[in-house]
């Protein structure tokens, strides 16, 4: 009789919800795997971790990780996370969501949270489309890509997410693909030890929905695209970090020190009350 195999990360996952709903080859599982790996290496106290996600395939992550978690309405994960972090700055607040959720409907919340430098950690699983609803165009869909709402090829220029994050004021910005598992894990670790608003874009394969329509119908074909095209250019100009069929610029782009909003707020409150005591 074989003993039932128990994965070393099973404590980090809610056993009642595993196996997850993600398609074969979907990169979301790799994002979660590397994130858990980082938590494990840092021996993070899971009782102080809050995982918040939006709507989308990656949005199911909040249900899978064995920590306090919340699955919000579409696009609002970052605003919700702001409330959580301000109410209890001791909590480690991670937002794990998708390209459409964070940058289309949620775009406004993203730029303001980055501007404020609120200490939440945002992980974007960028699969270039709205996978959960069947594969519509999104704000990161590449030019000429075929999606269910761009059946003749996309003509909208996509966002450069790392450029947007850097320009909005994030203290840590990185982009990796799901093939760069080790560097991604290292980036997660760095992010979890950093003060302020951090952003990591993870380019993930969506073979069933996006890849299939764009000549990469298996996960392996998408990962091979990542392998062929990705170039590590650490601390290069994020404005020039493009994602093209022949070149995907990855790396760490921003890593600066800046006081977080919640620290500034508490300092301000303390100062105000100091003045009052002196009356």
């Amino acid at each position, binding site marked *: 009789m074989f003993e039932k195999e128990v994965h070393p990360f099973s404590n980090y996952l809610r056993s009642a919800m595993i196996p997850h709903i993600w398609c074969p080859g979907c990169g979301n599982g790799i994002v979660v795997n590397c994130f858990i790996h980082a938590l494990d290496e840092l021996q993070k106290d899971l009782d*102080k971790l809050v995982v918040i996600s939006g709507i989308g395939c990656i949005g199911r992550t909040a249900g899978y990780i064995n920590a*306090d*978690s919340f699955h919000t309405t579409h696009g609002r994960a970052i*605003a*919700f996370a702001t*409330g*959580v972090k301000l*109410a209890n700055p001791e909590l480690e607040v991670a937002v794990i969501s998708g390209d459409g959720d964070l940058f289309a409907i949620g775009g406004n919340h993203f730029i303001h949270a980055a501007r404020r430098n609120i200490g939440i950690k945002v992980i974007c699983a960028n699969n270039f489309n709205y996978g959960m609803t069947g594969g519509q165009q999104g704000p990161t869909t590449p030019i000429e890509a075929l999606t269910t709402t761009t059946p003749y090829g996309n003509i909208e220029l996509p966002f450069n997410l790392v450029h947007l994050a850097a320009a909005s004021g994030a203290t840590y910005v990185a982009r990796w693909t799901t093939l760069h598992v080790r560097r991604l894990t290292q980036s997660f670790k760095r992010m979890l030890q950093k003060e302020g608003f951090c952003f990591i874009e993870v380019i993930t394969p969506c073979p069933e929905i996006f890849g299939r329509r764009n000549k990469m119908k298996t996960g392996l074909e998408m990962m091979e695209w990542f392998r062929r095209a990705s170039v590590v250019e650490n601390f290069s100009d994020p404005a020039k970090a493009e994602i093209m069929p022949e070149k995907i610029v990855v790396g760490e782009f921003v890593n600066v020190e800046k006081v977080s909003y919640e620290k500034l707020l508490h300092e301000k409150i303390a100062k*105000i009350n100091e003045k*009052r005591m002196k009356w």
Partner: protein
Amino acid sequence: MSEKRALLTGAHFMNGDVACAEGAIAAGCRFFAGYPITPATEIAEHLSERMPEFGGIYIQMEDEIASIAAVIGASYAGLKAMTATSGPGFSLMQENIGLAVMTETPCVIVDIMRGGPSTGQPTLPGQQDVMQAKWGSHGDYGIIALAPSSVQEMFDLTIEAFNLSETYRVPTLLMADEVVAHMWERVVIPSSSKIKIVNRKRPHGSPNKYMPFMPDDDMVPPIACFGEGYRFHATGLTHDEHGYPKTQSSEVQSKLVRRLCEKVSKSSDKIIRIEEVMLEDAEVAVVAYGIVARSALSAVRRARKAGIKAGLLRLITLWPFPEAHVAKAAQQAKAMVVPEMNCGQMVREVERAAKGTPVNFVSKLGEDPHTPMEILEAMRRNS
């Protein structure tokens, strides 16, 4: 930084918005996220000044949607949280109000009603959002909405709103109008021993047995907060008692949605508050709320002087609708008069509850609330 600064016990002369803000502080609200909008801006401005005095958090978010989302987040992180807005912002917040209902988040949302629809009359009163209070978000759900008529009630009912939201784990709405929000009256803030504060039910038992949506006998589940080791999940998707999404089961959907409705409706006798003035022998019963009830009170007194057996049923709770009270007044009255600053909203509920007793609607839009004479005229026509 001291909690003593929080409660400003004593008599004050203040406007409704400020009274509402002080009521929130007295209730233990320590998180406010908002966005400027006439005529609710003063609530935000006052709290931006007051919150730091006792370590409360104030943040101006980038829009109303972010405000209500942050409020839900802060509530789940353990703080009593509130936002305040007016019609346009209230419309924006509906989706997340639905999220608060679905995740049973205690929180307070203040809507200072102005002329609508759309941008409407930002500086003038209206009562056009009262149906939206009940039906604004998609789906079926129960919600509680209160309508203050005075500046003192702006203070008192804000505390009541917090207590109700904590008791029933439901977002509670304070539907005030621009006049009550901007007028200045005397407010008495009692000492802390005289203020009743209700805090949310906490879980009993060990964290690994905790089920965030398993109700007690009162249909309300105890609520844990983030960071205490409960490691629970909450989602806007249809979910089971564990909080995990269970979107394919009609049994789960039925159980959950009906409980969200009945949690409020079955406790309506404990929730509902009304005021009855000279209603015992009234032949013409006026049903009113908000600033209009102030005019209605004056009208009822004048009517009595003129020999009309008038009475006033003032709705303090709008939702759940005080059906039984309206039905009782309708039974003995020959006619009912419902003045509202809209095209007919609560009057529909009154008609429904009145079961045949003639109901006369007095509509007024724009500028001023009904004058007592306008309501008296309607009573004369129907006596």
